[in-house]
Structure formats: structure tokens, C-alpha cells
């Protein structure tokens, strides 16, 4: 690794940090804009003006917004996420278990969807123009166009209601064996794989097709290389940048965009926690969940950018 790569990677990381600060600012002030006064809502019927004023002072709600932001951001940096308004538990404790559940679901989905998507994308590119390519293309466009609640509800109808193969709800805590694992994760994973694979397939196919049209691929063909060798040795290494980016974008969806799937299958993940937090006006919890989504997204995108930098031979 040389000096230039190092400085490029460092500057990319610095940009990530700056983005994070801006995002936290946006998250904080966006949640501030939620309608209703927190103290009044928390006190409910006991909301006398004195009690509301007292609670506001206790919760620092009467301080200027910028001071509260600094206090909150300082807490974030030192790992103190604050306490929940709704049930007075530390937010870190509330999130921990849920976050692991979400990661499990995301991990299992990635494990299935990435290899499937790459294989389909690359083979479609190799056989571009063929019947196989057209079938894959039509199916992926079809899947993109169907909303995920449709896929999820259809899966429940088919596998849980008619065939009765799988439970309709995914309760992650009841996993004791491999079969349990398969039964619990099957439907959410299938639904999510449908949702995230389509884009990866399209991007992979486009990136590989583009490199397959280059003169160096024709050169490889004229050297007598087999189609497998042409794709693996010549086309793929040069298509890596866009593919990694497409994968990162799709996977980031698994962290923040799974609200519908978690709700339909009643899966105890972090997205569902956030939806519940909105219902109870639990600002610190909402903010922390939002920050986790943003950080996850940022990490994936930054990672993809760094991989693209490293895979660029001109920087070697």
C-alpha cells in the first residue's frame, strides 16, 4: 500500500466522520420537530401546569436546543445514549438485545442474497441477450416492482396459512436447533432477499456487461481464454467498484429499511423498537435508533468506497 492510497483512504474516513456529525445534527433537530410537548404527553392526565414545568426543568427541556444537542452529542460520543422517557431504562440496555436480533436477520439475509445476486448477475451478463438473461431481467424487474409487504403477506398466506410449513410469526428467542432457526428465519429472509437482491442483480449485470465490451476482454478471447476465465480474470476485477457499491447500498437497507418486514413477522428487531418509540414520544430512543441506522449505512458505504479505492490498479 502506498502513500497515495493511504491519504485517499484517510480522507474518505474523515469525510465519514464529518458526515456523521452533520447527520447527528439533522437527527436531533428532526426529532425536535415532532408535534406535541414531551412533558405534557408523559404526564398524561396528571399534567398540571406546575407538574409540566417541573418535569421540563428536570428533563432540561427548557434549555436552548443547541445546548441540549451538545449534551446529547457528548453523551453519544462517550457511549451514554441516555435514558428512555417511557420506562426510565438506560437506552443502551433497551437497544442491545434488539440490535443483535436485527444483525442476525441482516447477516442471514446477506449470507443468502449476496451470493445468489452475484451469481445471477454475472451469469446473466455472460449470456446477455439469451433467453436466460431475459428471464432473469424480467424477474428482477418484477420483484423490484412488488412492494415488500405484498411479498411478505403472500409468503405468510402461502407457507403459514395454506401449507402450514412455517410459523406466521418469527420469535427469535425460541431458537434451540438448526431446524428452529430455519423455521424462524425462513420467511423474513426470503422476503428480504427478494427485496435487496433485485438491485444487486441489475447493478452486477450492468457492470459486468460494460467490462465485457472492452477491448481487453476481446483480447482475452483472442488469446483462447474460456468464457469462465474471461469473466473471472478480466471482467470481474474491473467491475468490482460498482458491484461493491451496489452490495453496500442493498445491505444498508437491511439495517434501517426492515420496518415493514419486522412488523409483519413481529420480529423483535431494532426497527420495530423505533416504531414503538415514536408511538410513546420516547425521543432519546428514537434518536439513538436513527443514529444506529445512519452509522450502519455510513460504515457500509465507506467500506465500499475504500474497497473501490483499493481495487483500482491505477492507485497501486
Amino acid at each position, binding site marked *: 500500500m502506498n502513500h497515495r492510497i493511504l491519504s485517499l483512504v484517510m480522507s474518505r474516513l474523515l469525510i465519514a466522520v464529518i458526515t456523521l456529525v452533520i447527520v447527528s445534527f439533522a437527527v436531533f433537530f428532526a426529532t425536535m420537530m415532532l408535534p406535541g410537548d414531551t412533558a405534557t404527553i408523559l404526564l398524561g392526565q396528571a399534567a398540571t401546569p406546575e407538574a409540566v414545568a417541573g418535569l421540563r426543568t428536570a428533563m432540561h427541556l427548557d434549555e436552548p436546543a443547541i445546548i441540549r444537542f451538545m449534551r446529547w452529542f457528548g453523551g453519544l460520543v462517550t457511549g451514554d445514549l441516555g435514558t428512555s422517557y417511557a420506562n426510565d431504562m438506560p437506552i443502551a440496555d433497551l437497544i442491545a438485545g434488539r440490535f443483535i436480533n436485527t444483525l442476525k436477520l441482516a447477516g442471514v439475509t446477506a449470507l443468502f442474497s449476496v451470493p445468489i445476486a452475484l451469481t445471477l448477475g454475472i451469469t446473466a451478463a455472460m449470456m446477455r441477450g439469451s433467453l436466460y438473461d431475459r428471464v432473469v431481467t424480467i424477474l428482477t424487474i418484477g420483484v423490484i416492482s412488488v412492494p415488500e409487504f405484498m411479498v411478505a403477506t403472500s409468503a405468510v398466506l402461502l407457507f403459514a396459512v395454506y401449507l402450514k410449513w412455517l410459523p406466521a410469526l418469527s420469535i427469535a428467542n425460541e431458537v434451540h436447533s438448526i431446524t428452529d432457526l430455519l423455521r424462524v428465519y425462513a420467511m423474513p429472509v426470503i422476503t428480504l432477499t427478494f427485496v435487496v437482491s433485485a438491485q444487486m442483480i441489475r447493478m452486477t449485470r450492468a457492470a459486468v456487461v460494460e467490462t465485457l465490451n*472492452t*477491448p*481487453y476482454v*476481446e*483480447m*482475452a*478471447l*483472442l*488469446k*483462447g*481464454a*474460456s468464457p469462465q*476465465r474471461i469473466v473471472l*480474470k*478480466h471482467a470481474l*476485477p*474491473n467491475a468490482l467498484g460498482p458491484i461493491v457499491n451496489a452490495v453496500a447500498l442493498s445491505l444498508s437497507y437491511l439495517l434501517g429499511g426492515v420496518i415493514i418486514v419486522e412488523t409483519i413477522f413481529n420480529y423483535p428487531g431494532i426497527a420495530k423498537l423505533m416504531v414503538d418509540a415514536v408511538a410513546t414520544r420516547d425521543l432519546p430512543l428514537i434518536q439513538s435508533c436513527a443514529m444506529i441506522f445512519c452509522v450502519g449505512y455510513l460504515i457500509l458505504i465507506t467500506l465500499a468506497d475504500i474497497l473501490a479505492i483499493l*481495487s483500482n*490498479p*491505477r492507485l*497501486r
Partner: protein
Amino acid sequence: MTNLVEIRDLKVEAKTDSGRIVEIIKGVSFDVAEGEIVALIGESGSGKTTVALTLMGHARPGCRISGGSVKLAGKDMARLSEKARARVRGTEVSYVPQSAAAAFNPAATIMEQVIEITRIHDLMPAAEAKSRAVELFRALSLPEPDTIGDRYPHQVSGGQLQRLSAAMALIGDPKIVIFDEPTTALDVTTQIEVLRAFKAVMRKGGIAGVYVSHDLAVVAQIADRIIVLKGGEVQEAGRTGQILSNAKHPYTRELLAAFEPKARGAAPVVSEARPILAIENIVAGYGAVQRNGLPLVCAVRSVSLTVEKGRNLGIIGESGCGKSTLARTIAGILPTSGGRVIFDGQELAPSASKRTHEQLREMQIVFQYADTALNPAKSIEDILARPLTFYHGMNGPARDKRIAALLDMVQLPGSVRHRRPAELSGGQKQRVNFARALAADPKLILCDEITSALDTVVAAAVIELLKELQRELGLSYIFISHDISVVEAICDEIVVMYAGEKVEQLMPSATGKRPQHPYSQLLFSSVPKLDPHWLDGLERDPELVRAYCQR
């Protein structure tokens, strides 16, 4: 004795975008004997590359070998299965591409790609292949033969890549090598080294070759026999000397005529020599301005020149010497970082956006690629109408009349006005490109490599047109090109540029041009001549070559 290659009545079909099937090779037949180098020559679209690729059983996407046979050492490449063809490629017949820079995979080292043929066909262990490759690097007189293979393609120069691609083709010990315009993308001074290296290696190994080119002079140096193609048919075939001295076919004669020195003729008599354009100590470049006031990458360093009214100035130099940047600077597209541009007695603002309407009108620029300079979505009429409205406020019938007159000036039929650029040929597009500049009624036209993308015969016609228009309209041209013969044909004075500097100013019409500067001498002596013995007889000062041909 049977021939190594026997092509009989070869036909290739292509499918156009609209789904029509056209025959692009219409029954070509020829032979190549063992160890013989045969050149396929013709303009773009003549099918020369298509024919050469059928020797490997390959047709570009959209094309199909539809008839005839291509026998290579007894096997008919047109009938073999794809697997059987793959076995022959690289071992019996191999390919040197037109642009080595594009034909090397940017993500792998050079050595990996040079010895890839031995891996694919399992010819020899990797270590042996590597030492063989190093031998080939040495035979092709590449610098640092032992380590050059460890580099990536972007780390070596274009001329070196071209020789490396020859090493890549020769590693599998083929019986025949196809060279597809291997020196077209190179500068003339580099081209000589590459040609010499190719010739030496081919002679030594007794390898047969098919050399595809549009340049008769280059082909004369390396080929034993020449086959002239046009429109997918063989026009004439014969030994090199015979074709050069005693061509039968009119098309071959036309090609040869393009090489005859066309003196500019007497410079037009100008009553009072008045400079139309004078530039003084122009500095221009790209990137942020540094503390010393110069741009990060300086492309033009302190160049001064003058163009007199009604006379033409040529600027020659190799790729990267700053000649196009100079044109862009004069036109104000790229503002100068220093120096002055004086046009018709007035100093111009550095940036085009600060120049007056009249100043913009009087100086027009014509770009190299008409394909990219003309908006593909507009009809020719719209393209020409825009400057007429913009500069002259013309509308309605007056504008229509003017468009007809402009098309007439550039010798295009009036029927093209409703077509779009994609429906015209390369030469026609360049004429439209030029007519657009004429629409402004300029005094000076900057021509940036306007004939470089055209075939020799078409380019000669465009040059003739330019001369004629000059006589009629009293224009002045600044003519930028890397092709010395083109510049000599039209210019009264020639400026030679090297590495951003003007090294010399010459008068080609003066008795016997004698370049004084060593670089101009090298440049002028590197232009291939039709004489087949020119390359072997050419002696160049190795010191000079080293000093000026690092690229």
C-alpha cells in the same frame, strides 16, 4: 507447397441496429505463405480488420461469417466449434491489437497478461514462460526487460505497450500473427522504434503476418505483399514494390496520390502584411494555480506567434505537446494564466465569456471529432441555424437561404439539411462541422486536428475544400495537426511544438525546408516514406532519440 493461410470467397454479414442484414465482406480470397507478411490496406469501413479477425475464427458482436472458407494450416476456422477455435487462438494464430493501451487489462500486471497464453493452453511452466517473455522483451528492445513485466499497464508508455502486446502475441510460438493497425495510435518518432522491433522479430522467427493498416508508407516498410481492400472487396493485390510503382487500380492510385508532396503553391499576395492574430508569451495549463502564478500542470509555456491576414499557420507536434491546449487558449475556452492574445489589433480578454459578441464571431474553432462536436439530436439545418441566429440574428427565409449557401460552400448536397449527424459519413460530418464555423463569417478559423479522424483520400478532399474557401472568403487558418504532410499541404508557416514550448518556426514553401532544431529534424525525418527501403536505411542519432522519445 501449400500455403499457410488460404481464404476462399469469404463472406461476412453484419446486422445493423435496425435489424437489416448487410454483407460487409463480399467474397474475399487470398493466400499467405509460410513466413510471408501480407498487408491488408484500405480506408475505414473497407473490412480489413473484419477479414483479419476471421483468421482467428472471430467476428465482432453483430457480425457473422456467412460463407466461404478460412483455412489456416488445413483447418477451416469458419467451421470449427468455439472450443476448437479457442485451442488454435494464441498457439497457431495470435493478435496484436490496434490500441494496446485498451487491450491490456488495467487490473493485472503486464507479465501476467503476456504469459497468459501459456497458462490457458498449458504450454509450459510459469517460470519458463517468464524467462521466455523476458527474452522477447529484450528482442523487442524494451527498456528494463527483467522488471518491466512487474508493472501495471498504466505505468508504461503507449509505444512500450504496443511492443509488449507483440510479446504477448509471440509467446505461444504462433505460425502467424495478425497486426491490427498496431502503430496508428503512436507518434511518428515512436512508431519507427516499434516498426523496427516488429520487423526484426518476425524476420528472425520466420513468422508469417497479416498487417492491417490504412497507411501505405508504413506497410511499405514491413510487408512482402499488399492487398488493397475497398467496400469489402479486394481491389488489387501484388508484391509491395509492384503496388507502389505500378498500381493498376484507380483506388490504389488515389491512395498513392495522397502521398505526393502537394506544395502549398505561392502564398496569396497580401497587399499589406497585417497580423490578424498575435499571441505573446502565452502560458496555459490545468489544475489549481500555484504560488508562482503557474497552473499545476503547465501545458503551454510561454509561446508567442503571429498569423498574418489571409495566411495560414500550422502547428505540429506529438500528442501531449500542448498544441490543442494552445488552440483552446486562443479561443478563450481555457483562459490563459499569462501572456496576451491580440486579435485584429485589439487585446482579447483571457476568457471567452468576457469577450464581445463580435470578437467571438470573428474567431471560430473547429474540433477534431465531428461525432462529438455535433449534437446528435439536431438536424443539420438546426445545427447551422443556431450560429446564424446567434451571431447575425437571422430568421425565416433569409436564414434558409444562408444554410443552403453554406452547404453549397462545403460541397454538400442540399438534401442533407433534414438529416441528423448519425446519418452522414465521417467526411460529411466534418464538412458540417466546418460549415458551422463558416456560418459566423469569421476572419480566423482554428482547426484542431480536423482531418485526423478521416481517411487519407477523404482528408485530402477536405484540405482542398479548405484551400478553396480561403481563396473565396479570404480566411486565415491556424491548422493544428500531428500529421506533417497535411500541415505542409495547407500552411504558409509551420510552428513545431515540443513539451509545451515552441521549438522552431519554419517556412515550408521556402526553398527546401531545413529544420534547424534537433527535435524538428527528428520529427521530420521520422515521417514514413513510400520507399520500401526507407526504414532499413534510416539512421537516427540515438542520443536524439533518447532525448525526445521518452514516451
